[in-house]
């Protein structure tokens, strides 16, 4: 009964990322896209990294924002990969 959490906002301006971490479980997946990519630079990121196994970021969205994900434990995927990802979880919550 896992959830795919899609994060589209920066934690620097919204509470969504913190609430997502609060609700997430180990086997859930978290996908960063749009301004959600900025969360890779937020202090809460470490908390998420320690709590959830499956972490993804849209490569083009991170690169567009000059957010470096190379040294972080996260899988870079493309927009086209979102569709199959939604079928790997029971539910999807879009935090926006």
């Amino acid at each position, binding site marked *: *009964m*896992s*959830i795919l959490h899609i994060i589209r906002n920066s934690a620097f301006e919204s*509470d*969504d990322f*913190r*609430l997502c971490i*609060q*609700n*997430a*479980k180990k086997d859930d997946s978290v996908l960063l896209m749009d301004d959600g990519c900025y969360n890779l630079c937020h202090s809460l990121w470490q908390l998420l990294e320690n709590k959830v196994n499956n972490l993804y970021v849209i490569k083009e969205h991170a690169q567009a924002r000059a957010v470096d994900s190379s040294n972080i434990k996260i899988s870079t995927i493309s927009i086209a990969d979102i569709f199959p990802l939604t079928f790997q979880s*029971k*539910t*999807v*919550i*879009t*935090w*926006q």
Partner: protein
Amino acid sequence: MTQKHIGILNCSAPFSKPNAKDALDVALIMGSYEQSIALFFQGDGVWQLINNQSPQQVNAKAFLDTFSAFKFYDIEHIYVCEASLKERNLTDNFHIDNYCLLDQDEFSDKLHQLDVVYKF
């Protein structure tokens, strides 16, 4: 066909954005079609439940009064994050009855039991 269990996750305070009103509209529509629906209040969403609000002071509609109609729409599962109340120094002095206060883990467990979650 088995019925989907739907949750509406309220994370927005009532007046600055349309999210709270939109969530209420969706809940009532789902309720009128006899869908299995549960309401969740977390983060700033808990402000929607606080008693003695005066929306007319900011020229907003008094849509929170409609929460009292939940029982007529068979919306009986209302879950509130206790940690979010504590973070805001709030008590459960709410304008609704029949809610369930849940700690962080219980709240997460309830969300994970749903088939569909709409976050507002």
